[in-house]
């Protein structure tokens, strides 16, 4: 039994997890999904992956988005099923000053590096991640660059990060 409609997926999730699942949001197949409470994230993901009829065996994308106005960092999971060819979006909200989310690296191996990137660039701690360290920036870089309030450091190991304007006459 393949459940291809995001609304139907949402209904199945609601019936299993109740209040941990938010309302169905999004208008198109590529952005239709729901918010999940952080505490239930790993079980919801495991359920989505292993339940026959859902079979979301691929974590297509894991990104973090910084919403300073709402004071959260949102982690967005785009799930895809190669079996039934359907998409679903999960969103988890984490407080901006101390963001921590459970890691789904145990469910999909693709999450390992994607979560490292979100940690590196936005500062979200993924609890239970096997090897959480910076991936793109150098290991001793201060701060998390993709945050909206990130201020570039003046220098890195003695190399200045600003440069004289090339348009100086």
């Amino acid at each position, binding site marked *: 039994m393949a459940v291809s409609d995001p609304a139907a997926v949402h209904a199945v999730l609601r019936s299993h997890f109740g209040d941990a699942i938010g309302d169905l949001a999004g208008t198109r197949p590529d952005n239709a999904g729901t918010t999940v409470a952080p505490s239930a994230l790993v079980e919801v993901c495991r359920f989505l992956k292993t339940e026959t009829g859902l079979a979301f065996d*691929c974590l297509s994308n894991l*990104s973090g988005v910084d919403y300073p106005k709402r004071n959260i960092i949102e982690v967005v999971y785009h799930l895809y099923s190669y079996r039934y060819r359907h998409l679903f979006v999960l969103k988890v909200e984490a407080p901006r000053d101390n963001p921590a989310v459970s890691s789904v690296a145990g469910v999909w191996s693709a999450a390992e590096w994607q979560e490292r990137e979100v940690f590196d660039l936005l500062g979200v701690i993924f609890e239970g991640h096997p090897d959480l360290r910076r991936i793109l920036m150098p290991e001793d870089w201060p701060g998390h660059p993709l945050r909206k309030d990130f201020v570039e450091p003046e220098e890195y190991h003695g190399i200045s990060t600003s440069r004289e304007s090339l348009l100086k006459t």
Partner: protein
Amino acid sequence: MSLTGFEVEIQREVDGGLTTEDMTLSMGPQHPSTHGVLRFVVRADGEVMKEAIPDIGYLHRSIEKISEKVGWHGFMPYTDRVDYVAAMFCNQGWAMAAERLAGIEVPKRAEYCRIIAAEFNRIQSHLLSVGSMAMDIGAYTPFIHTVREREYINDLIEELCGARLTFNYMRIGGVAWDIPPGWREKALSFLERFEPLIDEYNALISYNKIYTERLRNVAAISAQEAIDYNLVGPNLRGSGVRYDVRRDLPYSVYPELDFDVPVGSGELGTLGDCFDRYMVRMREMKESCKILRQCLAQLPQGPVIAKVARNFKPAAGDCYVRIESARGDMGWYVVSDGTAFPHRCKIRTGSFAAMSIIQKVSRNLMIADLIAVIASFDLVAPEIDR
């Protein structure tokens, strides 16, 4: 800071009174390979690797953050640099994301122009990938031959949009320039010349005994593992999964075109080994030629760009666009907050996932095999680091 930059566990073994220790080698960031600035910390026992730990970030240019500063139209040239070997696809991904958010419909002729440019770019990218793979294995000649063919495509595309590598050809709403007069005939005569050459390359290098011995049964990845690690494109199809975004999540005018999706079949070794991935790329070039002939024949008349405001402000919301780039399914997750600047643009690329599986796949391979694996995944560093 340790020499490797991070902790690497060295194992010591005592064997018959002799203590041996692993060797830690650093392969890169400077090394003679066209795949870009990559680094592997290799823990090896002589020639046999225990593990190859990838270390990326040497080419990180914060392109995603730049999108938040330069605005919707201004970001188009930056998308070329995300993957400069297959730049048309990056252009297309960004344009499609903006169009989807604003609900813009692209004219038919523009879609056809996009696909023609994209498929030529796919052939270009595969030629480079196949050539540099042969060069890494030690055969220098096929690289020069494929680059020679690539030069013809470079000339064609230069006539189309003025650039040979970073095209900046597409715009939000269509493409920048129409196909010039006489270009169709030149493109068709190139295809006439090029298609038989693919068989010649197969005779020259693909089925060469030494070459196949280097590639078969090396780093065989099962379909389940490939899906679990989110491998895409020829890497996924090499493991036997018949999935292509052009066919299964169709976009643009691909539904009107007829083409096959080649899949690895464990031809000379295990299913999903390096040779399968390589042959999928060779066969895909033929399919691209088929698509190009159809597009060039079916090209409709009309405008090449929709009317899009200069001060482009799409509605607030998010979208996730997936296109089939030369390296596989490239995902563009774009969040708009209703202003002239995107709120967030996340580019999820095929090479990023391929890099993550190397640590697992490299156990008990030889150092020479690591080169073959990197080449067979068709990694390009700019796509990994953005």
